[in-house]
């Protein structure tokens, strides 16, 4: 039996065990009233036959209360996604160590990890009460994912080397996902954020906006000022969950624990009410979530959120508040705001990275930048500890871009390599690449001109990148390198990076924890939105007829990562991932400077079942799968 089918089965048998005990389920008082008045069917008809019994962090809770948060006026939809949105077929457990069933009751995985059968819960319902069946997943697959107009390019999770996944309906409660070859990371991917696609398209509601199902679609298009044709209309009503579109259509049924009652962006307060059809119960048989609603007060500035926290108007939040700079002032107002701290394991592989463009368009610059000795020299030239002391009051680790100790992939040599501040050693490495200097002491490139790099930097993540870059430029000058720092707007920076017109820039990188398997973006050249240090190799990696063929040592990394994808058990997978790192780390693709210490969040004193530490990563949209089990001692927030 493979690893995946084993965990799936234990999950399933757990759920079955409770169901066969002929339990009476409990529901929230506000729902009881609605059942009594006839507005809602009784609980037994709303829950699936085998509801998911969610393991709670401390103990089963009590109903009631409103979870109050704050949201920025624009671009902050992940605030909602990460509290209520992430509800996929499978989920990670609360410690981010293993994959467990979620919307699916169980998963059967073929021996070679190429076919996955998701068994759905019988009698499960959307938030409006309509049944959720295999047909909804097929609607996503046939009419959205496979429709070239709606999905011109497919998300990489659902594409294998031999083409997109094939999805077949086996019965009303069973769906098969089949790849042409082994895909050992598929279940992990489905448990991460982007696994949401198959389970957010409610056929009974969305088919009215689809050409195939509604012959009178033009009438709806005409009635909608924001759409010119049915494709725009469909995208408007059925936008992707990680964009604002999804949260601007409160009519759309979901499977989430809370359901929006108004659209994000157009009101002062976004309110999400409990979903009476939610499929999770606690071990005492109480239907989740415990809290009646979540409110997001719209504010324009992060500092206002801070003030709200001091006033006790924020019940549970780490987003925006977890910056190192806010720790002291939040600590001072702890008594007044009646909150406590919890840790979040938001630990990327590095928070401050010098990303040199290894595929530079200019052959002279490329020759130098792609020489590993140049990067080693640069790495030795930077005084990391001084940056940490000056900018972060000493809180940070002076290490390379590498997996953290908690990832299971940690090796000291990865973390410590070339991190010693040693200008002599730096000069030694640089002399191997560009030994000649001009009158002012700056090194000359192979073409005889001064070797100048334009370093772009944007003030992002609240990490004072522009200040850090000034320091780096001074260290570089000490070893004869001419770095010109250009502070710019992040969207301009990204535009230049994506079009491969940059010399170098400063950014951060995922892959510090278990996400190293699925997002090794700084160990393997992969196409990305923000991390692009070898864009041509990355293109070649996806499709060898495009981009540019990389040198043999980079190809070896690609091959090794390919093997990780086909591993069928976790031990094997780990060993293969370690091989990838063993090949990639000595090449020092990026020069990492600082790893942050864990950020934090705040929870009001009577919020219980708070995961501490809370794992968070770019792909892991926590705490969403576990917000439903948060509760207030006493049934409401402290006054």
């Amino acid at each position: 039996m493979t690893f995946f089918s084993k965990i799936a089965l234990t999950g399933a048998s757990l759920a079955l065990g409770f169901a066969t005990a002929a339990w009476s389920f409990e529901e929230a008082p506000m729902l009881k009233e609605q059942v009594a008045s006839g507005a809602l069917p009784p609980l037994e008809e709303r829950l699936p036959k085998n509801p998911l019994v969610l393991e709670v962090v401390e103990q089963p809770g009590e109903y009631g209360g409103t979870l109050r948060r704050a949201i920025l006026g624009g671009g902050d939809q992940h605030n909602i996604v990460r509290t209520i949105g992430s509800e996929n077929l499978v989920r990670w457990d609360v410690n981010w160590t293993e994959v467990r069933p979620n919307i699916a009751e169980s998963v059967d995985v073929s021996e070679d990890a190429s076919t996955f059968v998701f068994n759905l819960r019988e009698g499960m319902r959307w938030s409006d009460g309509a049944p959720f069946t295999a047909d909804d997943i097929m609607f996503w697959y046939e009419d959205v994912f496979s429709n070239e107009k709606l999905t011109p390019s497919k998300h990489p999770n659902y594409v294998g080397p031999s083409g997109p996944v094939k999805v077949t309906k086996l019965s009303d409660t069973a769906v098969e996902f089949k790849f042409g070859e082994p895909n050992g990371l598929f279940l992990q991917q489905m448990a991460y954020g982007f696994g949401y696609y198959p389970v957010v398209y409610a056929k009974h509601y969305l088919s009215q906006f689809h050409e195939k199902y509604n012959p009178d679609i033009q009438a709806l298009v005409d009635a909608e000022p924001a759409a010119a044709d049915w494709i725009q209309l469909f995208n408007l009503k059925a936008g992707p969950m990680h964009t604002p579109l999804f949260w601007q259509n409160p009519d759309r049924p979901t499977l989430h624990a809370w359901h929006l009652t108004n659209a994000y962006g157009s009101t002062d307060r976004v309110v999400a009410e409990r979903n009476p059809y939610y499929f999770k119960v606690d071990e005492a048989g109480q239907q989740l979530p415990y809290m009646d609603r979540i409110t997001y007060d719209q504010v324009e500035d992060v500092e206002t959120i801070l003030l709200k926290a001091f006033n006790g108007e924020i019940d549970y939040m780490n987003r925006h508040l977890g910056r190192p700079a806010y720790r002291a002032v939040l600590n001072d107002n702890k008594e007044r705001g009646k909150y406590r701290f919890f840790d979040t394991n938001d630990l990327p592989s590095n928070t401050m990275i010098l990303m040199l463009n290894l595929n530079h368009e200019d052959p002279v610059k490329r020759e130098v930048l792609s020489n590993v000795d140049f990067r080693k020299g640069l790495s030795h030239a930077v005084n990391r500890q001084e940056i940490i002391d000056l900018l972060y009051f000493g809180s940070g680790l002076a290490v390379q871009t590498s997996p953290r100790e908690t990832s299971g992939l940690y090796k000291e040599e990865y973390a410590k390599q070339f991190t010693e501040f040693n200008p002599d050693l730096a000069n030694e490495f640089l002399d191997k690449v560009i030994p000649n200097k001009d009158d002012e002491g700056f090194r000359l490139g192979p073409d005889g001109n001064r070797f100048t790099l334009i370093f772009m930097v944007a003030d992002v993540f609240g990490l004072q990148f522009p200040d850090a870059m000034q320091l780096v430029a001074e260290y570089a000058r000490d070893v004869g390198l001419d770095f010109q720092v250009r502070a710019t707007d992040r969207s301009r920076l990204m535009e230049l990076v994506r079009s491969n017109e940059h010399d170098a820039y400063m950014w951060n990188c995922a892959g510090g924890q278990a996400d190293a398997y699925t997002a090794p973006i700084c160990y393997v050249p992969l196409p990305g939105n923000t991390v692009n240090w070898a864009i041509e190799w990355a293109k070649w990696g996806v499709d060898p007829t495009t981009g540019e063929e990389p040198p043999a040592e980079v190809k070896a990394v690609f091959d090794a990562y390919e093997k990780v994808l086909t591993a069928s058990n976790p031990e094997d997978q780990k060993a293969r991932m370690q091989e990838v790192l063993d090949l990639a780390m000595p090449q020092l693709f990026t020069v990492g400077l600082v790893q942050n210490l864990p950020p934090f969040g705040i929870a009001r004193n009577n919020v219980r079942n708070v995961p501490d530490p809370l794992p968070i990563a770019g792909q892991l949209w926590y705490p969403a799968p576990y917000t439903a089990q948060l509760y207030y001692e006493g049934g409401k927030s402290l006054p």
Partner: protein
Amino acid sequence: MKGFILRRILYMIPTLFLVSIVTFVIIQLPPGDYLDVLMTELGEAGVEDSSTMDALREQYGLGQPIYVQYFKWMKAILLHGDFGLSFEKNRPVTDLIWNRLGWTFGISIMTLLFIWITALPIGIYSAVRKYSAGDYIATFFGFIGLAVPNFLLALVMMYISFKYFGQSVGGLVSPEYLDAPWTWDKYVDLFKHIWMPIVVVGTSGAAALIRIMRANLLDELYRPYVVTARAKGMSEFQLLLRYPVRVALNPFVSTIGWILPTLVSGEIIVAVVMNLPTTGPLLLRALLVQDMYLAGSLILIVSMLTVVGTLISDLLLAWIDPRIRYQ
């Protein structure tokens, strides 16, 4: 007088037309578009996904040439009063701005009244009692009001009311009233909050007007006609208000022209800091994310207000000061 008004209104048309073109060009100037911003923001959240963007680029029709976009936009505004669609909010711009413009006007008009109510008597007093203790105090606060940036004043006031009065700061109503219907308690709560932005925004305006009023009035007070009136035995108070103050009022009237647009767009930072539901934060955000129809519409409306404000103050000036009409 009729010819004067007609001429003024006719001048407005080409001005507005040019303003609309300049507006549209300016919002197109920065590199990239809304989708680039969205992609970067998603990237910051750790989400690496370029496939979504391909689908969305189609959605927003961002590929058309600029003049086609401009004509479409203008046509919809002129024929249907439709300002286009906000990319970020996915709603027609008209749905988004009227509510906020309402608040903006409410606060603006109250601020204007605050400025006049404070500046007029203080200005007169400090001119009439030149170099008295009261004049020095008024001058002192006047200069402070001019020198302190509004947003700093906002921060200090917010800090004080947070620290010593335990008030919920930011926004116009306390969180518990946010989605409550309008009751007496809510109005009371509103007035507990709304005085702060009015004072913050109004202080520098009031300070400036106090100085102007004082200077203008001082010019008038020693004119021969004042001396004559006094010699004829006119009461001091009546004399003051009837002649020199009336002449000194000109700057008050001519400020209407620039005070309208300032109140809509000029106090963006204050509105962001104090979390006011006005157009300022909306405009700032729209500019940052290149939500171009929203930003363009707001700038267009602000420009229209400037032009209309200038017209109003021109007409008022012409009405109180006949000399202007015939120039």
